[in-house]
């Protein structure tokens, strides 16, 4: 009877999970699991609620990406009520969503992931954290804190709340943008764009070039990918577009969001509360076997960077080209999620500027006429952690009768389990392991930003 190493809790991630590594009698890895520890029940307790209230309830699914739930939910309610938001309402929502991506990426890369690279994976746990980064690189840390705060406060001031937003409404947006706000947001976003370019350069030099051997090995698995692309030209999209499901060999199918049930299924294992979405349309079932996975695809930054044909903004497109020339398409190395995250941050800044420069952005016509009624709507946005699906059915009073949610992180639960197993198997041999090695197993999880 071998033993079990419990890494609990998994730290510097945004949820509740533990890792259990099972060793056999020889001290080699027999199996490894990422157990997801929490279940709250949003799909059920929104039943009966008036649908227009739901976007300000489901944002509590995630305090880090509340804008994503808020807006996917608004899109689903639009669909159920048969409303098309006004063009300005639609673009104000997109601006908030894309801007929220900027802050999320700063948070994840610099606050949560960077300690492993700046201080090193083997640094003592008491310093291998953001506080350690502040002490080791005070100038960088101060800049990061300032930039994140700038982005958060821009959203907070314009939309009332950055965390658990309320300004998106069925039919559009709760308030128009006035010229003064537009100018201020534009100035702030230009500062963030400069920072995002700096961050990308910094990371290429200090992380990706330096840790190339680790990137080539740690948590590497071979899977398909899911993301959202522009309906016309296949460019990266975060707020709206068609879904693209790619196989590991790079071939793909595109589909409209409301067809998701034909393409995706959710597998359940008895050892974790999170469901595990898989590609049902591949007709090969579900299997997390490392050598021959079945139905497994990944979401989040690396997936989006892999599935898109291009990026519509120039600086992010240049970064994508450099990335592809080094790693190909699709790139499978798990730690490249970080690289893709920083490319997306550049896009998010450029896209926010584009939206703010659009002449109609200050138009006061921000909300279409809404009438609660029976219907069904599927709302999809790309959350930082993956394709986020809200699917609501309403009754004649416009109250929810049924809801199905597929949350961004869950697409990556099966892949994270595989990466954990891959990392643990490679790192732990003959019963020899230490804190630094176990932290590297966690790094394979952190890359997915769960």
């Amino acid at each position, binding site marked *: 009877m071998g033993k079990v190493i419990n890494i609990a809790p998994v730290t510097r991630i945004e949820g509740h999970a533990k890792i259990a590594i099972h060793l056999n009698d020889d001290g080699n890895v027999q199996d490894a699991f990422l157990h997801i520890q929490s279940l709250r029940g949003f799909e059920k307790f929104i039943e009966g609620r008036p649908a227009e*209230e739901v976007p300000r309830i489901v944002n509590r699914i*995630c305090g880090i990406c509340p804008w994503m739930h808020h807006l996917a939910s608004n899109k689903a309610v639009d669909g159920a009520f048969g409303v098309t938001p006004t063009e300005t309402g639609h673009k104000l929502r997109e601006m908030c969503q894309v801007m929220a991506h900027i802050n999320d990426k700063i948070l994840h890369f610099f606050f949560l992931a960077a300690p492993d690279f700046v201080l090193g994976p083997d640094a003592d746990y008491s310093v291998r954290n953001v*506080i350690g980064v502040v002490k080791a690189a005070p100038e960088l840390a101060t800049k990061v804190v*300032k930039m994140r705060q700038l982005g958060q406060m821009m959203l907070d001031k314009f939309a009332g709340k950055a*965390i658990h937003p309320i300004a998106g409404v069925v039919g559009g947006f709760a308030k128009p943008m006035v010229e*003064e706000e537009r100018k201020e947001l534009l100035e702030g976003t230009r500062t963030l764009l400069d920072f995002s370019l700096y961050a990308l350069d910094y990371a290429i030099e200090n992380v990706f070039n330096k840790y190339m051997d680790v990137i080539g090995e740690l948590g590497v698995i071979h899977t398909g990918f899911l993301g959202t692309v522009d309906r016309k030209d296949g460019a990266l999209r975060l707020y709206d577009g068609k879904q693209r499901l790619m196989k590991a060999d790079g071939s793909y199918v595109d589909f409209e969001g409301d067809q998701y049930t034909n393409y995706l299924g959710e597998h359940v294992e008895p050892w974790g509360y999170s469901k595990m979405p898989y590609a049902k349309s591949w007709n090969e079932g579900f299997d997390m076997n490392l050598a021959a996975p079945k139905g497994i695809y990944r979401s989040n930054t690396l997936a989006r960077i892999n599935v898109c044909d291009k990026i519509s903004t120039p600086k992010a497109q240049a970064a994508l080209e450099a990335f592809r020339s080094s790693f190909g398409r699709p790139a499978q190395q798990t730690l490249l999620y970080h690289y893709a995250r920083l490319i997306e941050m550049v896009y998010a800044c450029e896209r926010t500027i584009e939206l703010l420069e659009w002449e109609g952005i200050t138009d006061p016509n921000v909300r279409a006429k809404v009438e609660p009624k029976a219907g069904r709507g599927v709302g999809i946005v790309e959350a930082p952690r993956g394709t986020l699906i809200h699917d609501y059915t309403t009754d004649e009073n416009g109250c929810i009768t049924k809801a199905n949610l597929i949350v961004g992180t869950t697409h990556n639960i099966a892949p994270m389990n595989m990466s954990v197993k891959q990392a643990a198997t490679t790192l732990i041999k003959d019963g020899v392991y230490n804190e630094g090695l176990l932290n590297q197993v966690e790094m394979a999880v952190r890359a997915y930003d769960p």
Partner: protein
Amino acid sequence: MGVTTAMEWLGSCSGCEIAILNIGEDLIPIITEVLDIVHAPVLMDHKYFGQCGEGVTLTIPEAVVGIVTGGVSNHEHLEVLEEMREKCTVLIALGTCATHGGIPALMNGQDRQESWEGIFSTETTDPGAKIPTIEVPAPLDRVYACDEKVKIDMQLPGCPPNPALIAEVIMSLVEGRDPVLPGKSVCDTCPTKREGKGAVDKVKRFITNVDFVPGAAIDEMRCLLEQGYLCLGPVTAAGCAKRGAPSCISARVPCRGCFGPVRKDGNQLLDMMNALASNGIDYKSVIDRRSILRFSGAHGKLRPLKKRVGEEK
């Protein structure tokens, strides 16, 4: 060396943790000098069972200050909360989930077992899937606020809590004084124009935008209740205001009560029904009245509806 501090999250969404980060530039001296953080899963790598995972008892280091977010909905939350109480001199419940149950306590209005079964039998879930039970913490019978399970020394609600108030609580503890916190209602901090009782006898759903002049100051907008919208400002604790107006009001959106009741043990639903009735507004015009308790459903306030008995006939 700063004041030793342990942080934990129970059934939470991490919004409270993000609110802590939103303290902004003052955060750097707080986390590097004022506090000495010894345990905080979101930020640092201290583990429950030793750094190499070979311990058997869940252990959190001793600390002067403990900050807990999230409500208590499963046995692991309870174990962590009890360990925090054991190890921390002053225990703070941060955020409305920790103080009043918050949104996850909406589950208290339903049959939990039946709901969970429904979650594992959706259109996309593989047929025959069962509720997971291996290596996952078993649920409690309902969602609890922290003070229903252990003694809490200080409560700071908000969904999310206001970063300025979080900083105030931390600094007051370090300086050994009482924190300065707002004790009034959202209405008391709301600058909108009140013109007195009007012709409103019903509340309307929020499916049209409120009446206001874009770009004009908030105090030029009429009170949203007087405009006929359900606004929970009268029955909700103050604290969200950041730029001279409650957060939602500043976005021209009515309040939904996210700081919980004005008095710790108040009942937002009953208080709001009373407020409407005393203003001559028909409370039956509020669709889905139970969701007025959407942020404060712990403490036994929100319970499953009895079968067969129609809701609020």
